[in-house]
């Protein structure tokens, strides 16, 4: 219990709110690769994530409060993931499902983002390729503990997205200091190709 300096009633009220929050996590499955199969299994009757109040996948990020990043995130897809995350209302939580979403996994190459935490803040990492449903439930329970104990996020971004000027060369061409991150005509790929 974090709020030692508060009175009894606010503390108990906060506990009740946290309790309500942790058992009503609406998930948004950002499923991109093979891990999604294991997510289906986790959702299904045998492992039944509904026992933990997270049974209701919302296919709009605007109605979700737990973003589950399931599978490989490519560099090309990373801006999409960021956009999905930005659309979620607070309070929002992120679970990296599988090693691909956690670290890039064995895809150490030019095309895969080495972990969803390169793009968005992550609260729970569930290792495994793919993780077994038990591990996912374990991760979910760890997140629920965190919510109940009111410990906040694991990774916190400084300011909100609009203020931090994160490096999206496509959608935010002008940075905070006025410099442009957009590619100039020279930097763009010429039609005939180019080597580096």
């Amino acid at each position, binding site marked *: 219990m974090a709020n030692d300096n508060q009175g009894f009633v606010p503390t108990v009220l906060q506990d009740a709110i946290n309790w309500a929050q942790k058992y009503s996590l609406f998930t948004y499955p950002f499923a991109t690769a093979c891990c999604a199969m294991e997510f289906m299994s986790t959702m299904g009757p045998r492992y039944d994530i509904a026992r933990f109040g997270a049974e209701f996948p919302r296919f709009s990020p605007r109605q979700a409060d737990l973003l589950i990043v399931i599978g490989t995130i490519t560099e090309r897809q990373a801006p999409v993931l960021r956009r999905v995350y930005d659309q979620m209302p607070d309070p929002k939580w992120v679970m990296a499902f599988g090693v691909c979403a956690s*670290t890039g996994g064995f895809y150490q190459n030019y095309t895969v983002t080495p972990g969803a935490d390169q*793009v968005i*803040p992550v609260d729970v990492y569930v290792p495994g390729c793919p993780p077994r449903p038990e591990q996912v439930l374990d991760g979910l329970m760890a997140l629920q503990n965190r919510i109940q104990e009111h410990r906040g996020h*694991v*990774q916190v971004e400084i300011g909100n997205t609009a203020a931090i000027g*994160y490096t999206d060369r496509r959608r935010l061409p002008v940075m905070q200091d006025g410099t442009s991150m957009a590619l100039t005509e020279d930097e763009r790929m010429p039609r005939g*190709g180019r080597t580096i």
Partner: protein
Amino acid sequence: MAESVLTTLHKHHGDDAILQTASYVGDEMALVERAHLLSVMQTLRDTPSLAFNMLTDLTVVDWLGQDPRFEVVYHLYSLAHKHRLRVKVGVPEGEGECWIDSVSGLWWAANWSEREAYDLYGIDFRGHPDLRRILMYEEFVGHPLRKDYPQNGRQPLIRRPDAVPTDDQTTRLLTHSHDRSVR
């Protein structure tokens, strides 16, 4: 049947167009001179006894250090005669030299395959209707499947401002400063 594909091909084209042929356990290959590619392909598709009406695959091999450096490989199949042929064409790497004629006018299936080969190997398919990148993003510089492209040569579109640099995965795990313990 097995011999006759290459034999028929030899009847139509001389040694200046067909540089080399090979046949091994029913696996036919013809190495074609780049300037004659389109006429050879036309023969392969339109001669009734050959009738290669399907381009099953188009890919590229990068023989770094050899000349010509690239080898474009076409896998052809005839639905009528049920025979296959592999056509290879050498493509040198130099600036302005790394080109080959597009066969998308003969097989429409070549369209995206050629875009992929252009994207990953940087080969200019002349006469292609829409030669753009297909897998990598437009901002990407270079061609990642070339052997001299660095393996970890990421070109991120977006990063969190406090994202840990990730040239080397081991270093990343050791220096990761975020608190990963959740409980």
